[in-house]
Each structure stands twice: as C-alpha cells, then as structure tokens.
C-alpha cells in the first residue's frame, strides 16, 4: 500500500504515561485517553503469542460474522427423544461435564426429578442410588446441540423448542420452561413438579407443536429485537418477549386445541420467563454457527453446572475451559439469603455469549436493581462489555444508547487484556436439592477459565492449528460426546 502522508488536524489516542497525554493537552491536540491497566497476571506472554497469530483477525471476522448473520427460527416443539435423539437412560445437563459425585444440590435434585419422571426409580432415595451407581449416562447439553436453564436437565420424554438457523443450517433445542418457584431446573422434584412436567409433555408440548405447525416458523431475531426495545434483556427479564410470543402463538393454540387453549395460554401468560428457553436456543444456534474457526479467539459457549463454570472458544473446538462457579451477588426471595445460594448454574449464559442478558443490561431499566440499583450502572455495565467484544449486533439494539447494537462476540484476548469479565445476569438456585429458586442477581465467571483458554490458544497459535483435545486447559478433555448438530465449514 502507498504510505499516506499525515494530514489534517491530528486526533491522538494515548495509552500509558499520563505526562505524554498532558503534553498533548497543553498543545490543544484532541485526544482520547485509554484507561489502561496491566493485563490479568501471568497472561502477557500468552497474549503476545495469540495476538501475533496471523489467522486471528480473519478468523474472528468469520466467527463473528456467522454469529451475527444467524437467522434462528422457531420451527418445532418435540420430545427430546426425537429432537435430540436422546436414548432411554441418557440425560443431558447444564454446563461443562460433571459427575454425580461432584454435582451440586440443585443439579442432583433435577437429576432425581428426571429419574422419577422417566420412571427409572421408585423414589428419590432409589434415584440417588442409581445415579450414584452410574446407571444413567450424563452429558452436557452443549455437546448435543442443546441448552438448558439452571440445572438444564433434559430427559427423553421432556419436550423441547427446536430452533433452526436459516442462514447456516444448524439446529438447537431447549426444554420448555416450567415457570418459577419449585421447578425441576432449580432442583425441585416434589409431586407438584413432576405433575407439571407430565402435563407439559401430555398437553403443552403437543398443543404448541400443533399451533406452530399452523403459524409456521417464528423469526426469533425479530422477536428478540422487539423485546429489547420493550425493556427485556432476555435473560433475567423476558416479560415483553413472552408477551410477543404469546401474541404470535395464541390464534394457533386456539385453532389447534380449543379444549386446552385456555390452560395453555394461562400457563404461558403466567410465566414471565416462558420465552427464555426459546431465546436460549436461538442464542445457541447462533453461537454454534460461530464455532470451529481455527485461530478464532471468540467465546462460543459459557455455561455452568453448579460446580464449575466452563467456556468454549471457536478456535479450540469442543474443549471446555473451566474454573469454580461463583456465588451470584443478588436479591433474595423471602427469607432466603446468600447462605442459601448454590454456586452459579445453567446454560442461560448462552444469552450473554450472544450479546444479550447482562450485556444488554442498558436495555432493561426495570431490573437495574440486580446491578446495584440505578440506570447509570446498568448503562455502565453494557458499556463495559463493548470493551471485551468484537462487534455490535446489527439487529439487537438498545434505545437508551442511541440504538447502538448490543456488545457481542467475547474475545478471550480482550478479557485478559482488560481484566473485565463478562457480566452475567442469572437466577439463583437454592443450595439444597429440592429447594428451588432463592433469588436472582449478577455473577462474574472465574478469570482462570479465560486464562486457561488463552494459554491453549497460545499453544494452538504456535502450532498454527487447533490443539489436540488431550492438551486441554483447566477443564481437561471433555465435550466430544455425541454428534454436533451444527454443520461445520471448511475454514479460510
């Protein structure tokens, strides 16, 4: 390229010693000062190696381009047995891989509930015994093209939303939302929980399936974009999105099943989070489209199993990088307090991965109490996420920020450089199995998961290709179970 002679009024970005910036101020030179801090301890060497990877810029453009161009459509409602080809005796769960021994209270509670629902145990004690003996095959939702909120336990008879990416062809699933309070995803497995799940399988699922066949596929990007402008951030607030979904489905529900329509509509209308699961599947199918681009440093999954937080990076395939799940800082229901809280749990961080949830806090002034109480802090939360993301979503816009797109595409290198961790909005599960939800709030992922991913990216950069799975980070080898539902592309 021909060198350009500097011309025009200079406008300087300064980073580092304040004295050099002050000298420019003294000359009345316009400047933008970077609020620089040293990167996360011990990452300087890995950062230099990863940043020097000649594939990085194009790989990230490819990955983020796919994330942004995905067109998730709600195409069906089916039993997990069909949609996920989930065999009898196989359960999926949230987060990175976990064993019964390491599983937390709510995860154990949800697994017990699933055993009872599937008729694999005579009672809770029997279920525990069988689970402890490894009678059930456990694997992460993420490895099967699925996501599940909180415990995220999916058993074959549960019905799931099926979302297809019309642009890249992938499919993702998420079970139907049970509502708040004592529910399976929070680890409750009492009779009322199982009764509700059975009704969902016998009535809700089939009616929604039939309704959707009448209305045709629903464009979830359009629905999410509208909901953001109506005050949802699509993780801890889904009231607008649920209302929009209900509006779309209601005529079809009535047509499909006049006898059950009132019950179904009442159930959906009574659960402000009903849309969350459809939104999660939309985020999952978009994030999967961005996966497996060699050299890319973009995070394509963040998920917790109640014990570990785990993430996946586009350029590192199916490997998980994990660290201890934190306890959310938030507001508690009734007499519950922090001592009752379980460490962070659920695949719902897929919303943050796709630029919603905590990243879109500025769109949801109604729930700013979760981030400290005022709108300025919600705005600051979103603004800070632009620091660690590569793009702004073209469709998901925030009115309060001048219709700026939400920050999307977390870059591991930017997390390490800034020390800013993704801001995650989340529900809080009770520590004891069977308790259910105790609150909601904000949580930070462990920095160690990001630094481990960075170290693996550095190794891969040195080799010029993705690392072997056994060379995994803190989380070790994992996640290669089962088929992937997203077609892979030949990269670059």
């Amino acid at each position, binding site marked *: 390229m021909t060198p350009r002679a500097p011309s025009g009024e200079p406008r300087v970005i300064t980073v580092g010693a304040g004295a050099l910036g002050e000298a420019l101020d003294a000359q009345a030179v316009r400047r933008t*000062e970077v*609020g620089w*801090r040293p990167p996360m301890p011990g990452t300087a060497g890995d950062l230099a190696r990863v940043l020097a990877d000649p594939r990085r810029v194009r790989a990230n453009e490819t990955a983020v381009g796919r994330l942004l161009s995905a067109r998730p459509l709600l195409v069906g409602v089916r039993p997990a047995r069909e949609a996920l080809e989930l065999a009898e005796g196989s359960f999926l769960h949230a987060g990175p891989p976990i064993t019964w021994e390491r599983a937390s209270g709510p995860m154990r509670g949800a697994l017990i509930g699933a055993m009872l629902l599937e008729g694999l145990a005579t009672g809770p004690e029997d279920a525990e015994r069988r689970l402890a003996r490894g009678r059930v095959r456990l694997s992460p939702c993420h490895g099967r093209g699925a996501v599940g909120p909180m415990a995220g336990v999916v058993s074959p008879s549960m019905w799931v939303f099926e979302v297809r990416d019309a642009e890249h062809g992938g499919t993702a699933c998420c079970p139907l939302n049970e509502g708040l309070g004592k529910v399976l995803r929070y680890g409750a497995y009492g009779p009322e929980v199982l009764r509700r799940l059975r009704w969902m399988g016998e009535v809700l699922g089939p009616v929604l399936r039939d309704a959707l066949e009448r209305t045709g596929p629903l464009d979830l990007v359009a629905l999410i974009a509208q909901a953001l402008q109506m005050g949802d951030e699509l993780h801890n607030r889904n009231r607008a999105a649920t209302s929009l979904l209900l509006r779309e489905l209601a005529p079809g529900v009535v047509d499909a099943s006049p006898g059950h329509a009132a019950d179904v509509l009442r159930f959906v209308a009574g659960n402000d989070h009903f849309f969350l699961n459809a939104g999660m599947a939309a985020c999952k199918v978009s994030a999967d489209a961005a996966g497996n681009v060699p050299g890319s440093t973009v995070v394509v999954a963040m998920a917790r199993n109640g014990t570990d937080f785990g993430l996946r990076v586009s350029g590192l395939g199916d490997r998980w990088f994990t660290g201890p799940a934190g306890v959310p800082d938030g507001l508690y229901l009734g007499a519950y307090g922090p001592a009752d809280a379980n460490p962070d749990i659920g695949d719902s961080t897929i919303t943050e991965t796709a630029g919603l949830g905590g990243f879109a806090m500025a769109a949801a002034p109604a729930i700013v109490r979760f981030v400290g109480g005022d709108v300025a802090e919600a705005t600051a939360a979103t603004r800070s996420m632009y620091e660690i993301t590569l793009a702004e979503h073209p469709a998901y816009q925030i009115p309060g920020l001048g219709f700026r797109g939400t920050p999307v595409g977390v870059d591991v290198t930017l997390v390490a450089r800034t020390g800013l961790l993704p801001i995650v909005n989340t529900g809080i599960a009770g520590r004891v199995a069977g308790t259910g939800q105790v609150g909601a709030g904000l949580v930070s992922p462990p920095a160690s998961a990001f630094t481990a991913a960075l170290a693996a990216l550095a190794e891969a950069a040195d080799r010029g290709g993705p690392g072997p799975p056994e060379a995994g980070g803190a989380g070790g080898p994992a996640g290669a179970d089962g088929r992937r539902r997203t077609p892979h592309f030949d990269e670059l």
Partner: protein
Amino acid sequence: MSADLVRVRAGVYHDSVHLMRAGRALTELPGVQVAVVAMATELNLGVAADLGFDVPAAGPADLLIAVRGEGPAALEAAGAELDRLLAGPAARPEGGAPGDLANGVPGGTPVDAPDGVPGGGRWAPRTVRAAARAALRADGGAATLVLVSVPGPYAFAEALDAIEAGLPVMIFSDNVPVEQEVLLKRRAGEVGVLVMGPDCGTAVVGGAGLGFSNVLRPGPVGVVAASGTGAQQVTCLLDQAGVGVGHVLGVGGRDLSAEVGGLSTLHALETLDADPATELIVLISKPPAPEVGETVRRAAEGLATPVVTALLGPGRGDLTDAAEAVLRALGVPVPAWRSWPAAARGGPYGGAGATEDGGARGHGADGGGRGHGGGAGGNEKDAKDTGDAGDAGDTGGADGSGEKRARRLRGLYAGGTLCAEARLVARAGEFTDFGDDSYTRGRPHPMIDPSLRLEALSAVPPGDVALLDVVLGHVADPDPAARLGPEIASAAARGVRVVVALIGSEGDPQGLDAQGEALRAAGAAVFTSNARAAAHAARLLGGGP
C-alpha cells in the same frame, strides 16, 4: 522515632511516571524520610523490602504504598497528600471538549474505579481498539494517530490494535522484544501505516509534538530519525536558523539493525516523499547495519525529494554539521549558533579555550555560512562568530588547588545520541548516559527527573570539567535550570567548570532564552550546539579536536 505506613490498594493502576512523581513529592514533605509509591511488581516489592518495610503479599496489579516518617502526624499528612496526588488525573481536563461526554465519547481515566462493575456515566476505553472505535462514533471523527507508552512487555497489544485499526502508531515504550517490533512493522507495512519506535522518544506529526518534543516552527523539512535526541538537536538548530519542519518521524533505535531491516525508515521516507509540503528530507541515525544501509541509501536515491543523510559515528560529521548541511541545501545562511558564556567568576578557573574551533571542523568549509571565512584553521574571529561561550580571562591552567592530578572531562548526559556525539567530539573523558535503561529502571527519565545527574555532578572533583545536556520541550522538566542551577553554582564554586548543551527552541514551554540565561548565571557555559559544547569542554582541559 520513626514509624512506617504500608498499604496495598488492590486493582488500582497508575503509570510509573505518575507514581514516581507522587513518591518524590512525598519524600519532600517535612517529617517524611522515605516513600515508595509503586505498582507492586517483584522489583518494587524488593525495593521496599530492602528499605526495611514489612511488605505484605501483593501483585503487579496492586498499588504499593510504603512511607517512613517521623511519627503518626507526618504519616497522616503524607497519606492525605498522596490521596490528593493520585486523585489528580481525574480532575485534570480529559478527552477533549466537555460536549464529548454527551456524545458518548469516553475521556479520562476512571481513577480508582472498582473493576468489573463500573459506576457512573464516564467510561474510558480500556484498549486502543476500544478507543479507536469510540473515536469513530464521536462527532470529531476518527483518530489519526496512536501514542503508546505502557510498559514494554504490554506495548505489543496496544500497538497491534492501532495497526489493525489502520492507524499510525508511535511506541514510546522501551523494552519491547525485537521480534515483536519486526512483527508490528511487517503488519503495518501490509496495511500501509507507519510504526514509530519502539523506544521512539520524539516525533512531530501534523503539528502535534509527541513524547519529548520541541515546539518548532512549521516548514519544509521532514525528518526521519532513528535517534530521538539527535532529531531534537538538528530540528532545534534548524528552528534557530529560521527553518521549520513539517513532520519528524521517529523510527526507533533498532530500525536500521539487520533484524528490523529499516522497515519503518523506508516507510517514513516514502511517506515524506509523498507529502507535497516536504521539500527536503533529513535522515538521522547511528550507522546502520551495512546491508540495511545500502537498502536505505538506494531508497533515498529513488525519491523525488532530496535527502540529507546524517549518520553519526567515528569519522563522520556531527549533528550540527547535519543541520548546517540542510541549511546549505536550502540556501539558507548558517547563523552563529547561540551560546551564553559562563558568568565571570573571581576564581582562577573559567572558560579559557574560548577559541573552540568550530570553523576547523569544517562546517563553514563551503563558505556558505555567514562569517565563516573559508574554513580550515579556526581562529578567534571564527570562534566569536560561531557563538562560543567561553569565559574571558582564563588560561585554562591550574585548577586552583595546585595539585597535580589528571583532570578529566565528565559527560553527564540525558540524551543517548547527544552523549555519543559528545564522546566522539571530545575524544576523551568519562561519559555516562543517564537515559540508558540501566538508569531508568524504576525511575523517571533524566529529562524529567535530574536527581541522579545532580548527584553525579555534586561528585565531580575540583578541576574537572562537567559536560551536561539539558533538553527542553514538551514532557521534559518544566524548569530544568531551577533544579540544575544550584548544583552548577556549587560545582563552579569549588572549581568545576560546567558546560551545558542546551537543546531547545524559542517556542518551547521552558523558553530557550530564559533557560540559557539562568544556566549561564549559575556558572555554566551554555551552547545550543552539543558538538560545540563538547569541543569547548575538551578545550578547557587542553585537549579536544
């Protein structure tokens, strides 16, 4: 009885210059014996431990404060002063016009803001990448340049951000690994942007002075420099002669090494060649690696714009020669370079050797210079014309003590190139470059903080000659004469002759005249040409060229 105050503030970052200034300010408070205010790196923790502080566990992302005072009252006062000093940057004007904030343009640094969950409306970008994006969103339009001065191990990421955003970048930071420098310059070449540095101390781009830079009149000369103080000397002399500069593009001291291959020099030459306002290019460097020198020479020959090359080294011309060559090429008369003779003193020492033989060194050899009568064999007249600053009435003989001791020339320099030049011109003496890495680790550059040089000057024995550079301009000490003056006076009083090379322009914030006059009044012979200063110093000892 003394007492210690030791505190660690987690996750609070300030740059080292700022902290060292704060630390120095604390030690100047009454009742404070020693203060360490630094990021808690291994090195700094060691410094505090060596001073006898009980150092707690802390990491490089934490701020370490350790103060020893005469009692609780002194420590409390120091603590309050520190809070005030560290709050300073937040209070200073930030990031352009106040209206910028309304447009969502971040500015300033949220000092001591908690990590992760930022409060309030102000948000400074945390990387160059984010800042470049923010600038694009602002009404003022895109950024045109990035100035990186973070510690060397971290400079790569910020500089790469600039290149990936298509912005030229000046890397002031030193200690950047050479393989990173090569990588940055290759990437920059691919996208057509210039990398200045690493370890680039000065630049002038589009009228903005970056780093240690002088206020220069605008003009037709473009400079490509692998030497910061070298460029400052040449451009300040040109300014003095009435010739202005357009751009001064630093390339970093390693650019012409075999490893880097002159990537930035070649780019900078092309850039200036393409600039219609640049009529003449000056290339200033230490002698390059031979094969690189050949490449650069060929590139220079291929330009439409004439190039004056100044390569410093044994057997070559000095910086003053280079400035004069530029003037001749432009057909501008060479003036008598300004100087201030040392104030007359009663002692038996002083500035004999006022016949510093500038003429003999050939600068007037082509007769182009005013009053340079044909060159060789300098004489008293020439010396006068070239503005020699020798004191009158001394023969440079005895040092007053009567001892028969070999008197020496002590070069106490802040600028690396100026130091090397003085050593070449003076031929003998003991030269120290206080700007070298080994002296700047953990303390500000001597152009900002003269403490080490003052110490060295105070140790120069009677009869010796002390030769110092004083560099003016942005970022440099706002009043170097005020801090050097007393030590110069005290040196002069005990029989040390002090010669100063004063590198600056009329427009510099410190004022060339005011500084020259103040240094002269303190007892120094002051020259605006470093080569003249060195020659004069050598002659004071009866040696030199």
